[in-house]
């Protein structure tokens, strides 16, 4: 199966971290309950009895940015090993119990968070919550699964050394954030992964899996009282406080530069990024609108029109806002023929500049607002998506009533606002990485 426009997928994945998460008409039917367990653990719940399942998502603040210095990959490996044996159950026994009840559990590390999901039939909730309790409180980190995961990580890291997307991405982060945790890849390096020990995993879990940095969202066939009991069972024995190192606030460096890496591939991969707007900045929503117009979610953005529709230079071209904890970013990318890379990068630069200087038109503003409001209920169509949104609202600290306020916040944005914010967002310049059969001499080495 081939999808026509891959940009939608890229856009949506990135947008999930920022704004597109709350229902307008859906608000009428989607009621969020704030559940506080007897032990004081908070979760946001949307009760939905019509499908017999329960979806839970949770976040522990402090992801890869809490990896030990010079050991990137610890959080990634810990997340991968959490469901590989806990308590009295070794990996095989743990997985077999989950399978017998069709309990689906997953953990992942991002730059700023450890995220987890749990999905189960409501008739199997007891088993699901119990397995999650074991995984979070008594992970075994046995040698067999740890060595297996290490081998898998190293295989993937080796593969990435010849992947144009990974080479470009790694170079971008390394150049933009020297001497900062963000310079290091979440999944580690060929140098760091062999050195990670079981003690590293245990220490990381002990420091990060705690109660004061936890946010929980639940959707499904469960009531508030039952959920309260389950929250205490699953999370109640975790340490009260996480031990997090402060992460220094930074701005991306080297904006305005273009780094090229020579790689013998038919298609050149372009990535770019610069400073964005923090999620809690009053300019975030205008910036979100500006980005939507430039290269955001719909198929009518300026980049889509100029690069793809008019000139056929690329299949996918997009931009997005990435407001991280320690740096707010504006990012994007495309892939094009080697002999068209120069022209494509030039077009992107030109469109960024044009929007920065002249701002959007009133028509673009109105259509963008309409899209952002109208597409809102579509991100609430599955329990797992709603649970993720419930967590994101809490992580971003937007308030339990944000879903009701959101339309008004968007309506309030004026043409002057977006013109001003377009300058603020887009005038700072971006750092480009270009990987492929570059036309000029290589200006950067790849690897690591």
């Amino acid at each position, binding site marked *: *199966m*081939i*999808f*026509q426009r*891959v940009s*939608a997928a890229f856009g949506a994945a990135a947008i999930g971290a920022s704004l597109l998460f709350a229902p307008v*008409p*859906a608000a*009428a*039917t*989607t009621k969020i309950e704030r559940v506080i367990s007897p032990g004081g653990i908070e979760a946001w719940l949307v009760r939905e009895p019509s*499908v*017999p*399942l329960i*979806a839970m998502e949770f976040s522990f603040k402090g992801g890869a940015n809490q990896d030990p210095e010079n050991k990137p990959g610890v959080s990634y490996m810990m997340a991968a090993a959490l469901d*590989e044996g806990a308590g009295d159950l070794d*990996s*095989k026994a743990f997985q*077999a119990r989950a*399978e*017998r*009840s*069709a309990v689906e559990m997953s953990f992942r590390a991002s730059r700023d968070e450890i995220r987890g999901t749990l999905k189960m*039939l409501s008739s199997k909730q007891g088993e699901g919550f119990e397995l999650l309790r074991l995984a979070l409180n008594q992970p075994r980190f046995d040698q*067999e699964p740890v060595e*297996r995961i290490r*081998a898998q990580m190293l*295989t993937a890291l*080796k593969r990435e*050394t*010849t992947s*144009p997307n990974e080479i470009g991405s790694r170079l971008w982060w390394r150049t933009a954030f020297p001497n900062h945790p963000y310079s290091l890849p979440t999944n580690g390096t060929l140098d760091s992964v062999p050195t990670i020990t079981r003690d590293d995993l245990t220490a990381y879990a002990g420091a990060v899996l705690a109660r004061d940095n936890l946010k929980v969202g639940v959707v499904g066939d469960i009531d508030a009282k039952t959920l309260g009991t389950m929250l205490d069972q699953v999370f109640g024995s975790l340490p009260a406080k996480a031990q997090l190192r402060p992460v220094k606030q930074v701005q991306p460096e080297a904006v305005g530069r273009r780094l090229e890496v020579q790689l*013998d*591939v*038919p*298609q050149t*991969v372009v990535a770019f990024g610069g400073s964005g707007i923090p999620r809690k900045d009053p300019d975030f929503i205008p910036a979100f609108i500006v980005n939507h117009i430039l290269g955001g979610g*719909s198929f*009518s953005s300026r980049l889509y029109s100029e690069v*793809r*529709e*008019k*000139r*056929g*230079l*690329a*299949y*996918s071209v997009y931009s997005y806002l990435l407001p991280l904890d320690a740096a707010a970013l504006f990012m994007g990318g495309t*892939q*094009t*023929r080697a002999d068209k890379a120069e022209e494509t990068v030039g077009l992107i630069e030109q469109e960024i500049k044009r929007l920065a200087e002249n701002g959007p038109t009133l028509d673009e503003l109105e*259509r963008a607002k*309409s*899209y952002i*409001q*109208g*597409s809102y*209920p579509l991100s*609430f*169509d599955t329990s797992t998506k709603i649970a993720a949104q419930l967590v994101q609202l809490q992580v971003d600290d937007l308030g339990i009533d944000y879903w009701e306020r959101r339309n008004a916040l968007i309506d309030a944005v004026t043409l002057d606002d977006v013109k001003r914010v377009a300058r603020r967002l887009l005038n700072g310049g971006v750092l480009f990485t270009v990987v492929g059969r570059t036309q000029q001499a290589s200006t950067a080495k790849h690897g690591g």
Partner: protein
Amino acid sequence: MISRRLFVAAAAATTGAFLLGVSPNYASSGPDVSHFKLANGMEVVVIPDRRAPVVTHMVWYRVGSADEPAMKSGIAHFLEHLMFKGTEKNPAGRFSKVLATIGGQENAFTSSDYTGYFQRVSRDRLKMVMEFEADRMTGLKLTDEVVLPERNVVLEEQNSRVANSPSAKLGEEVMAALFLNHPYGRPVIGWRHEIEKLTRQDAIDFYNRWYTPNNAILIVAGDVTADEVKALAEETYGKVAPRAEIGARVRPQEPEQRSVRTVTFADPRVTQPSLQRSYVVPSAATAKPGESEALEVLAQILGSGTNSRFYSKLVIEKPLATSIGAWYQGSALDQTRFGIYGTPRSDVSLKDLEEAMDAVIAEVAETGVTNDELERAKVKLVADVVYAQDSQATMARWYGVALTTGLTVEHIKTWPDRVQNVTADQVREAAKTWLDKRRSVTGYLVKEPAKPQERRS
């Protein structure tokens, strides 16, 4: 470009709407799916989901890359792109612009057996998208001004999906070697040298041949009733006159598969060798009763999850591989594929891993599977049916895939029941009969050796 991940999606697509076994009380409360035909022959499926005031609207055509004429590989997919280029009534970009303004989502997809278009909108916009979609069923208007840049877009898509990816290139080679006669051997996106030559007229010819209401299925999932959809469909699609006769979909069939084949693809960018093998096996549409379900269970037991045979034996017990798995694409109009794949650890050769994988398959074929394995596989497959009901888009896709690959609504509804009835003997028999290497091609992805010294005479 038909990646492993997409095959999983396609395989899941044969699963159904009702649940039996895991949560019996739910079987009766699954969605009340309606299925009927308009006077012009267009089929309609309505899947109610009242949780949010949104709908997923899809039109599926019973045509895909396996229906393409010779030398025109990629035309089904290229036409799918060109369907966004406007009609007599709605010039290029209008439909997309309207959707972009109201906050609707849209996309389209092409496979060997089907081509589909979908929008996700709030329920009050359903009629509007039906009007647009009905209009482009017959009114497509193309000029070289839009066709030629879009062909470049498709060529870049081919670069992204295939040319830049050594494993995707190997996948194409395996498919081409596997199907001796059936057009499934052609990449859905097409061969590059043929894509480069596709014209406006090729697209129009393909469109006129296949895009007609009597070859289309409307699927609406979401906050609507069957009666509402029926009335709207009659007002919109119902007014489109059939414009082509659609006979039986007969494509060249496979001769007997009788030789063990291998394909080796070498690329300097390969850092770790890997292997993938595909067998020609029956699909849900071509299988004898119970056979396709047994293959589904076999794929689950053999290669899905860390407790599968492959993973537990060859990754955990005897660590030869870093990744390994098996899959079965049940949904296909004609004979389909069962696949296995693996990446050896850095100190293990491809040959050693392959022999070990063959030994695991031989064991299943000879001594069968345990009751515990059988039960776990069934729990998983049937639970997936419930999980799927959480997504109206997934539900819509299941029905679309089924109806375009020779199955019926009834088939979907009874799928969990039929999975429950699979016996250990049937699983062993499926492995023995169908996982015969003479029905397969094994592809090896290896690092290209350093270029030999230039010889001088």
